[in-house]
Every structure is written in C-alpha cells, then in structure tokens.
C-alpha cells in the first residue's frame, strides 16, 4: 500500500467529514513529534565532532571531502573556489595563511594558487562517522556497562519468572489457610514503590553485603506484585480438570506446576518476560542509589555519568544513547502487537 493510498483511502463510504481530515493531520503531526526526535538522535550520532558543533546543524551527517594529491603525504581538504574571473574550480587546500589559502589543483599538482579564504566553500559529502560507535567501545567502560545491563536483565527476569509463577500457582490453584492474607500482602506491595523505601532497602542490601554488586540491583525488584497478578489471573482460567487429571496421574504438586501449569501459562509468561526486560533494562533510580563504583554501572547509570563528564563529547554520548535504545527498539518492532495487547489487557506497564 503506498502512502498516498494510505492517506486518501477511507473506510467510511459517505465521504469526507472535516473531523477525518483533522484526524489525519493530527496523526501525521504525531508521527513527526514522536519519531522525529529519535530520528534526529540517530542522524546526529553519525556526525563527526566538528559537524556536531556547526550551527545551524545539517540534516544529514556530512563531512568535508578529502583528496590525495601526488607529492603530499596527507589527504588534502577539497574546496569549491570562485576565481577572480567568476568561474568556479575545485581545489585542494595545502595550508591556510591568515586570510589567504594556498591551494592546488589536484589534476595539475605543479602550480600553487593563493585564494582569499572567503572565496572558497568546502565540498561536502554524506559520510557516517562510525568511529562514534567504535571508539567508546574501546576507550570507555562501555562494554562493561553493556555486560552489566545484560546480566542484570537476564538474571533478574529469570528469578522474577520463577518466583512469581510459583506464588501465582499457589494463589490460583490451591485453597489454603492464609491465602487471603497472602493476597493482601501482594496487593499491599503494589502500593509501595521503591521510591519511598529507598533508604531502608539500601540498609537491607548493605546488611546482606551486596552494595556495589549487581545482585543489589537484581534482588529487591525480583518479586513483583504485577507479575504475580498477571500470572495468577491467567492460571485461574486453566481448567481445574487438568490439575486433577495430573493428580490422578500421580504427579506431585511440583510436577503439576512445572510440567502442566507452566507450559500452559506460556502466553502470560511471555508478557511478563517482556515487561521484566523493559523494567530491568531501563531501571534508573535504584541502581543510581546502590551502584557507586564505575565497574558495576549499568548502561543507564553509565550513560547518565557520561552526560555529566563528557560535556563536549556529544558524539560519543549520542552514539551510546543509540546503542542503549537499540535492544528495546528491536524488541518493540518484533513484539509490538504482543506488548500493546498485553498492556491493554492488564492496564500495567
């Protein structure tokens, strides 16, 4: 479907109402406003340090064309020069002296020309400054941050899936004394964001000897009330007959959980997996409080530290930002429908 068709074709057969036009205008503005900034970030991340400092900025990543001229070991920058007779020529600059520049014709390297600097304009070409991406990987602890973030996200998600599904299983399949009290505890936890118990959780983590370890980031958020609710709600829809059939088949309660209920809860587990990955990859306040050594920083904390330290090194900061958002963007592209229906059904994020 081409774009014009997308805009002009309508489902309503009765013709255009002004609200339809307004709606499409609003949506297109939305596309610009929502995608524009990210696109701008990505474009900017491929610009050289010099072109990042230009004002007004160019839209696409550009850099000055350089050319190798026989007799000069270094490549020389190329300019378009307006000559005294009004013609224009492309010349390479050998050196600049005050307001004059010594230039040379690449085709005829024998003769040097003197040109006033205001008569020449750089020849620019589209170029991606990929060194913005490769250099931070070598020069900074960025790979360490990346590894830390991956470790936290993977391990925390696995723990969350295991203990949340166990609790949800107990709370959905069984009747037992204290079930209501346990449900109340889960609901109560829902009301207590880490924001307001920052200090005492820090104390608990200190007592456990975990400060500056990644486990200090992983453990406190592992038991999520959201996850328990989500999974319990799903497990409640499983037919009771299945559980009883398994019991008649001499399955132990653990086997019922692991071999019957868990495989059948996969859709809900998938939603929780995505949520957990999002939460953990993006988590900020708690790691900021508990991780104080650079080698234990996660990506988010590392990025925040960089934006304080690397005031003028925007080229690295932008590239690292792009690298940080890429995994999330990939997850989104592949699982968009899944995530949005998951959120719409649960009202949680």
């Amino acid at each position, binding site marked *: 479907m081409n774009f014009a068709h997308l805009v002009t074709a*309508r489902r309503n057969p009765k013709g255009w109402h002004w609200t339809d036009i307004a709606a499409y205008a609003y*949506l297109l503005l939305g596309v610009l406003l929502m995608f524009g900034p990210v696109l701008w970030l990505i474009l900017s991340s491929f610009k050289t340090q010099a072109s990042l400092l230009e004002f007004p900025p160019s839209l696409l990543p550009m850099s000055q064309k350089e050319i190798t001229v026989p007799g000069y070991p270094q490549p020389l920058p190329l300019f378009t020069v307006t000559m005294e007779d009004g013609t224009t020529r492309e010349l390479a600059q050998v050196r600049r002296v005050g307001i004059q520049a010594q230039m040379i014709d690449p085709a005829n390297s024998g003769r040097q020309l003197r040109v006033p600097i205001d008569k020449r304009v750089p020849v620019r070409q589209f170029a991606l400054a990929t060194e913005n991406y490769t250099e931070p990987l070598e020069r900074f602890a960025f790979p360490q941050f990346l590894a830390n973030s991956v470790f936290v996200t993977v391990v925390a998600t696995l723990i969350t899936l295991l203990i949340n599904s*166990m609790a949800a299983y107990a709370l959905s399949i069984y009747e037992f004394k204290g079930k209501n009290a346990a449900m109340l505890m889960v609901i109560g936890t829902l009301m207590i964001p880490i924001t307001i118990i920052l*200090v005492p959780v820090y104390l608990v983590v200190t007592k456990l000897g975990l400060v500056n370890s990644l486990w200090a980031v992983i453990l406190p958020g592992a038991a999520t009330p959201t996850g328990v609710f989500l999974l319990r709600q799903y497990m409640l829809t499983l037919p009771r007959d299945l559980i009883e059939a398994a019991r008649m088949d001499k399955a132990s309660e653990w086997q019922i*959980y692991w071999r019957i209920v868990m495989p059948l809860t996969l859709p809900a587990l998938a939603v929780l997996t995505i949520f957990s990955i999002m939460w953990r990859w993006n988590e900020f306040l708690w790691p900021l409080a508990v991780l104080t050594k650079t080698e234990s920083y996660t990506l988010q904390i590392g990025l925040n530290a960089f934006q304080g330290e690397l005031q003028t090194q925007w080229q690295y900061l*932008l590239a690292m930002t792009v690298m940080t958002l890429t995994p999330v963007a990939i997850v989104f592209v592949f699982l968009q429908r899944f995530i949005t229906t998951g959120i719409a059904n649960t*009202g949680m994020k």
Partner: protein
Amino acid sequence: MTGLQRLIGERRMPYVFLLPNLVFFGLFVFVPIAINFVYSVTGGPALFPSERPYVAADQYSYLFDCGSYVDPNTCREDHFWRGVYNTLFFSLFQVLAMVGLSLLTAVVLNMKIRGRGFFRAVYFFPVLLSPVVVALIWKWILQRDGLLNAAITGFGGDRILFLTEPGWAMFWAIFVSVWAHMGFYTLILLAGLQAIPSDIYEAAEMDATPRWRVFWRLTLPLLWPNLIVVIVLSLIRAVQTFDEVFVLTGGGPGTSTLMVVQYIYETAFSNQVQNFGLAAAASVVLGIVLFALTLAQLAFTQRKSS
C-alpha cells in the same frame, strides 16, 4: 521437590510455592517499611538503626518548620518545600496535558482510520525507552545549538536557553514526560473505547445524532471508568517523577525543577552529609500521599469491576 512433598505432605505445598516470593517481599518491602519509620524518628549520620539516637518527631518538625507554608524561602528545609511545590505544579499540568492528549489520541485512533496499528505503535513506542535515553534525546534537541534553536533562528527569532531558564525548564520537563508516557495511557483509553459496543454508535447514527453529541453523551460517560483510572494512575506516577527530569535538567536551573523524589535521593545519597533520617521522614510524607491516591484508584477500579 517431589521428595519435599513426601516429607511435608501435599497440603503444605502451597506454602512452599509461596515462600520465595514472600521472602523477597518481606526482605525488600515490609522490613524496609518498618525500618523507614525507625529512620524517620532517629538522627545522626549512621546507617545502622542501632547506632542512631532516638529524636522523636524532630525530623518531621524540621521538615515542617516554616514561617509560611506558601513561601519555601521561609522554611528551614527550603529544598523540600521547593520540591513539594515543583512536584505539585508539575503533576497538575502534566496530568492535565497527559489525560487531554491521550484522550484525544485514543479517540482519533478509534475512528475509522487507515493504518491504525502503525499510528498506535508510533504513539506507544517512547513508552519503552528508558528515562535516561528520553532525557538525552530531548537534551540534544533543546541545547543551545540544537535543532529547535536552529529552527527558531531560521525563522528569524533569537536563541532560547531552554534548559537554563526556569520557566522553560519546567515547561520542557512536563513536555518530555508527557511525550514519553502518553502512549501508555492512550492504549488504556483505546482499549476502553473499543470495549464500547458498536451497536450503541449505530443506534445513535440511526437517530441522526451529531458527532459532538455522540462524544459527550455516549463516548465520554461510557469511557469514564477508564478515564478515572488514567487520571489517578498518571497522578501517582507524576508525584513520583524523578529520572527524566533529573537527567534533563538536574533539578535546575537552581532548584526550579527539583522534585520531591530527587530531594529524597540527594538528601540520602548524594549530599556531603548523608541525612538518612530526613530522607526517611520525607519518604513517609510522600508515602502517605501515594497511599491515599492508590486507595482512591482501588476504590474506583473496584466500583468499575462490580
């Protein structure tokens, strides 16, 4: 595990399944809540409660020691009160903008629109971005030589220092926060709109009801339960705002975008003297506000489901 069941019996197994999650809840939620109260009534720089002297309600009276509550300058802990007022201001306008825009977007997306899935994805995707990434994206656009200033000078205007002028900094804090989260609330409202049976609209069309009247008399009342959830939920989140604003403005210029949570974080962790007692007292105050808001939300959702 099967051996464990032999040992303790089938009927005690639910407790085994529940145990790990409850241990985590206990260790990282319930014990901390109790300790938080202990912190808030003790003083000194020590981290361990046993080493902290009891000071009764001193921390609270210090927080609330003001000449006049409407003027933070008259308060002994003026940063806390600036945080309170900034948070109130931020929350009020952020929630208004959030609810208004997500409602508008949801209604538009619920129209007979081509490519609805694409547009829904466009509005939703910033929700997945981390607060740090969101803040850096906008910081880059809003900086002195950024894209926005280029556009302004292109139209002949003067550059504006968006993040270092107090009024602009607060505006962009609100803007960026709405930008990042409105997709989530749009999704909830859209789900609510799609749950309204279409025969109601068809009946209204048979009655030749004008569109604006359909919206005010049918859509809005039927969507009201979802709208309440969105209002309270966005309010709960707004009151806890920290990360995007912290990375975008650092609370500045001065204290003009300092939020309560940033105050708590800095009081406890990043100031020269780590004042755990004062941070805990401020947490308790914030906690009470959040608790009230959550109860309101539960009350509304209960009514919705019954």
